[in-house]
């Protein structure tokens, strides 16, 4: 957040907290990417090109494990920053 602190909520029991809508929208798009990619089965239901003996169908889906993980982590950082939480998630006991 480069525009200073978000305004303090006077009645925290009422509305949602101040949120950077753009960042939340980007996070939503990042989360949709793996869903669309993996449900589009005809795009990867084929044997070639192979990698280490694995047909394309298999290694492609394994690849998405890592892509999805990275996208989800990015979306996580974005949602924290969109609500002005920065790097210190409250209440975390890790």
């Amino acid at each position, binding site marked *: 957040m480069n525009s200073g602190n978000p305004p303090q909520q006077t009645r925290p029991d009422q509305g949602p907290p101040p949120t950077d809508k753009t960042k939340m929208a980007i996070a939503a798009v990042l989360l949709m990417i793996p869903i669309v990619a993996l449900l589009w089965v005809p795009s990867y239901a084929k044997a070639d090109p192979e990698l280490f003996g694995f047909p394309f169908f298999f290694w492609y889906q394994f690849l998405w494990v890592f892509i999805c993980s990275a996208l*989800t982590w990015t979306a996580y950082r974005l949602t924290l920053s969109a609500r002005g939480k920065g790097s210190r998630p409250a209440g975390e006991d890790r």
Partner: protein
Amino acid sequence: MTPHLSVMAADGGINGVALGVLIALFLLVSVAGFMASRFQRGESLESLDEWGLGGRRFGTWITWFLLGGDLYTAYTFVAVPAAMFATGAVAGFFAVPYTIVLYPIIFIFMARLWSVSHRHGYVTTADFVRGRYDSRGLSLAVAVTGFVATMPYIALQLVGIQAVLEVAGVGGGDNIIAKDAPLFIAFAVLAAFTYSSGLRAPAVIAFVKDILIYLVIIVAVIYLPGQVGGWDNIFGSAQEKMTTVNEATGKPTGAFLPGVGAGWAYATLALGSAMALFMYPHSVTASLSSSSRNTIRRNAAILPAYSFVLGLLALLGWVAIAAGTQPIGLDGQPNAQLVIPQLFEDMFPAWFAGVAFAAIAIGALVPAAIMSIAAANTFSRNIYKEWLKPDATPKQEAKVSKLMSLLVKAFALVFVLTLDKQNAINFQLLGGIWILQTFPAVVFSLFTRWFHRWALLAGWAVSMVYGTVEAYQVINPVTGKHFGGSLALVPGLDQMGYIAMTAFVINLVIAVVLSAILNAVKVSNGSDETVPFDYFADADDPRVQKDLAQHGAHDEPYGDPDDVPGNAPAR
């Protein structure tokens, strides 16, 4: 039990060393389970929250193990590889995209559910629906569905334990008692430790289990492919088997890759399973027992590690094809569910086969315990206290919960004994058909109150009936039994699809159309006890802190009976 069982099992033979290692590790874990009630404990295990949610004080890593416990089950170790072995990629490998798209989906809604639950003291999705719509009927529908859908999922775990014991040579004869003895033994052990220490037992055992499982998986995926001629040969053998014509059906045995037209089945199986998983009471329990809203989101980024390993496990089904594994039960009949234990017994030294058996058995035990606790919580809160005995004390509630956790396992046992266990993955898919129908009432309601409570109820009712009837009508071509699979023609599409998704679409259409009508004619949609802020509160919120503290060691009634506006009344 050994003398006459060894006679019954003469055909397969008892693998003494493997069985010894299995029993030793099983006992070790059981002791750990009993001792677990001391782990991070509150003042007593008497209240339901303490017994069922572990006091809600688990951080990222314990939550990771707990959630992993939901995923690494007999489903991954026994059912998915067996499906790969028997009918190929469409029936089995969809589990990989399922467990990948799962995390973006829960990322989107689970944090909101965590926040609103801790602001209002909700423990189940039915609690939330009750608070959101002031509708006891809709809440009951969600609770009953959660309870019933968990049963086949637990049944799958029992099949997994049974498969291991059968390959190790215990039971499985023609004699009715000997045949199911291992099943009953496994059931008894599971029941005993769940009963005595609640969610903490699985949390501690989850560590032991994951260490065992990772050990076995690493050894299996590094060692086994080389033993059967490498991945080229594995995929070659699988392709050969899958394209061979099955004499019983006159069609190819299975699918090496999803062919033209099978993509729809593959995608709906993956998406339907992913949307369904976090509707189950046990997944909700595990998510709510995390210590902050963001624990779940951080977990969503690190949990896919499990999916990668799941994919490798699925491929072990094809390693077994290349290895020529013959999964023959002790009754002399082929049973695909035995393929992974049999592969391990054939390929590993006896002592390590025992370790692998223990990993599978404990890997089934942990989720079965978590599932039965969660289903029982749902029953005691949303059925017993809500409908049968509204003035029940927390102590009575916890007692009913414990008894129901036994009962739900007993029902699961009935599923195993009556349904076709040759296709165990179908147990999980059947549960998915039911539980997915609570998705609109729970998840959509986290974001909007546009949907009308009666419309949601009507959509749920129609889709439950549709899904059950469709699933009943799927007949296994070989055995002739009903509930033989979970794929059916999608009306108007001329493609096979997962019944759960078809039912879900019907559910959604009814909910949307009826909501529009009911809202237009201004039928009351109940009162909403939540406020928008509830969906964003984190562990630094005073009321959430109060909830976390109270539920750590309290014997007060549920809810937050204080004077903060918008708060839940005491229940």
